[in-house]
């Protein structure tokens, strides 16, 4: 059962109040708060079980290795991976995306080869490819947007025609749009492309089944899904991961090293050079267990209801004074609400909201190309998660009215 009161209680940072008023945390698309279960798991592990992994053979080290590998298994099950070996631990989704973009380009792509991205990508799924465009002469093609902030797939088959790679986000971190992943994957595969999905914004909020999704690789971050900072995931089909060269060299990723050459360990070790985020893996394991105990379908349901409530409330209260980006249809969007409020600059709006302890992000959300396309140099973004409730939305709406007093509009 989805017991909101109990869930809220699980998050110590949400219990905080500043100067008498509670903290209203609406910045989870940026990074999420952590439940006690995650904090405790990390602390207990550090206090009672911390040891090196994959290197030493004494029991404590073997137990730590098992705990780390068990975290991999938990993550694999959470996304329905075919095998835990398909789950690579990185430092964040950005590393996951770079690992693929750099490795695949250097290994397989030539001057003139085409990589397809979309206009709604996060910098993490743009800049790595621009680096490779500069280094290898790769061409980037873009899937454009419709006016209501969805991907315009009308010309998709032409765009992906002959493309070597298609890499796109499952959900926009600015517009909230949830993309038709399976359709894009299939049409890209039909064109012969290898497909990567930036799943940063969907894995924390909805059921993820990589087998049903059909993509070749996906990337996501631990810190956006109740886990700690310092850990991200690259999932990939094993035949793809086998072909992908490592981004970094060092301990653990090798099979053998001689003065003149080295050979790689099998996946996933090949991609995990150096001491990995051990404590963080334990934390991420606890996070997916916590999420599963609540149920991803239930979380998505809660967020849909809350997003609908937020759309309704804000539109009723502010009418044309508020412009909310992205699709209206709740089935096609996640709990991310980017908006413009009157003619106020987002930075000023966020300042006024902060006065009421309402935490939102104001800025370009690491998606500057998208911002230019929607002709905003910034937006205010309120993003929802399992621990938010209608009261949070009401406080947001009330806080917005106080902008009137200050800017005298």
């Amino acid at each position, binding site marked *: 059962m989805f017991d909101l009161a109990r869930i809220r209680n699980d998050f110590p940072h949400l219990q905080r109040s*500043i*100067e008498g008023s509670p903290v209203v945390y609406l910045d989870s698309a940026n990074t999420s708060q952590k439940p006690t279960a995650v904090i405790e798991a990390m602390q207990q592990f550090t206090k009672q079980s911390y040891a090196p992994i994959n290197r030493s053979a004494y029991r404590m080290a073997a137990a730590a290795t098992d705990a780390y590998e068990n975290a991999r298994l938990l993550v694999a099950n959470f996304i329905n991976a075919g095998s835990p070996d398909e789950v690579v631990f990185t430092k964040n989704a950005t590393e996951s995306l770079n690992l693929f973009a750099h490795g695949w380009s250097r290994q397989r792509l030539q001057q003139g080869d085409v990589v397809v991205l979309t206009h709604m990508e996060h910098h993490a799924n743009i800049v790595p490819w621009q680096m490779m465009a500069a280094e290898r002469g790769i061409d980037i093609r873009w899937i454009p947007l419709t006016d209501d902030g969805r991907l315009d797939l009308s010309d998709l088959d032409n765009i992906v025609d002959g493309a070597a790679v298609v890499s796109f986000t499952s959900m926009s971190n600015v517009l909230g749009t949830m993309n038709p992943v399976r359709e894009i994957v299939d049409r890209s595969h039909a064109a012969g492309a290898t497909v990567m999905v930036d799943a940063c914004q969907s894995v924390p909020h909805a059921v993820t089944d990589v087998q049903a999704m059909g993509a070749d690789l996906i990337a996501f971050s631990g810190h956006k899904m109740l886990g700690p900072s310092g850990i991200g995931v690259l999932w990939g089909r094993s035949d793809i991961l086998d072909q992908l060269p490592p981004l970094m060299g060092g301990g653990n990723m090798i099979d053998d090293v001689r003065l003149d050459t080295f050979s790689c360990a099998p996946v996933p070790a090949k991609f995990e050079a150096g001491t990995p985020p051990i404590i963080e893996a334990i934390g991420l394991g606890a996070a997916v267990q916590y999420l599963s105990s609540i149920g991803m379908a239930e979380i998505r349901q809660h967020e849909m209801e809350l997003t609908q409530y937020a759309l309704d409330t804000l539109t009723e209260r502010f009418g044309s004074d508020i412009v909310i980006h992205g699709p209206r249809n709740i089935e096609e969007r996640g709990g991310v609400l980017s908006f413009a409020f009157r003619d106020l*600059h*987002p*930075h*000023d709006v966020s*300042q*006024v909201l902060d*006065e009421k302890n309402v935490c939102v992000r*104001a*800025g*370009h959300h690491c998606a*500057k190309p998208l*911002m230019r396309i929607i002709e905003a*140099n*910034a937006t205010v973004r309120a993003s929802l998660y399992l621990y938010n409730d209608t009261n949070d939305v009401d406080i947001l709406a009330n806080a917005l009215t106080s902008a009137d007093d*200050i*800017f*005298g509009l």
Partner: protein
Amino acid sequence: MPGLEDLYREIILDHYRNPRNRGELETPPAISTDGHNPLCGDEITLYMLVEDGVVSEIKTNGQGCSISQSSASMMTQAIRGRTLAEAEALIHHFKHMMSIEDHHHDDPGDTPALGDLEALQGVVKFPVRIKCAVLPWNTLSQALESA
């Protein structure tokens, strides 16, 4: 906690609503310099005409929050008609007020008064906004280097 009234003084809102010296200058003879704040996306273009070592004309364009916009507006007022050396001194003076520079050129002889700009003093209590207030000034610094 400092109240918002410390940040959004009346004079600041006035400059925000009615920015002075907004627009462009022909380049050349004027020079133009771009500045931006990667955190919030604020962008500014500064146009400056220097004649005989004096900033004879200065205008700004761009998009930004009330703080960066009003800071730019007030800056143009304070800088116009100043010598390059005076402009430099004002930059230091302003950055000192924003508490991001230690050394204050406090010889009143070569430091023009900040005037309206004093109203931005309250920004110091909101550290995240200091970058907004300073953006036009950093852009001016760059412009002076190329002048």
